């Protein structure tokens, strides 16, 4: 049996439409990275295959290879189009 942690994923724009969720809590294996999580979500929701996304963990920019911690807030950030 794997050890797991719980994180929250928030969705915006196209990703919110595809998941039909603003956010959700998910259980993930320890030492998972945003890359691992995206792979799972991609399978679950049919998210884009080669996404041009940035990563934020706990409201700061982070890398696709960051190791996620319990209770982390993870956001996949599509190319921005404000203004």
């Amino acid at each position: 049996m794997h050890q797991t942690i719980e994180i929250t994923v928030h969705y915006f724009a196209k990703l919110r439409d595809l998941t039909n969720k603003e956010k959700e809590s998910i259980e993930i294996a320890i030492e998972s990275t945003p890359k691992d999580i995206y792979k799972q979500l991609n399978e679950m929701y049919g998210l884009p295959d080669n996404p041009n996304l940035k990563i934020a963990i706990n409201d700061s920019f982070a890398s696709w290879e960051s190791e996620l911690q319990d209770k982390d807030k993870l956001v996949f950030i599509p190319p921005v189009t404000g203004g």
Partner: protein
Amino acid sequence: MFLITEEIILPNNIELKFPSSKVGAKSIFEGIVRDNNLGKSVKKLEYQCYEELAIKEGSMILKEAVQKYKIDDAFCIHRTGKLEIGETAVFVRVFAAHRDDSFQACRYIIDEVKKRVPIWKKEIYESGESDWLKGAG
């Protein structure tokens, strides 16, 4: 100061702020919802925002502008939610002693906001369809 608001932006209310007596130049930029984009008739816009990071990144951009240019004050407010044609989506204002600095800083701020602040725009077309705009980067 960088703000995000769901309320309608009324530049005249913002403009009640009086500059310091050292200020000789004021530059303002406003992004306004227009009725067309890339050949399609736009009916309204919807802006979604990752607010915590948007405030952080927006405030950072204003700080950078103050460091890069000789300016007295920089202010930016960005609207979210559903916007009608003609409404202000973003408002930038810079006070400086001289116009070269106020122009350059104002341009820097709006360019960086459009590149870096996590806000996304969905266009709702006259046809009833809608689409999230594709960002450059």
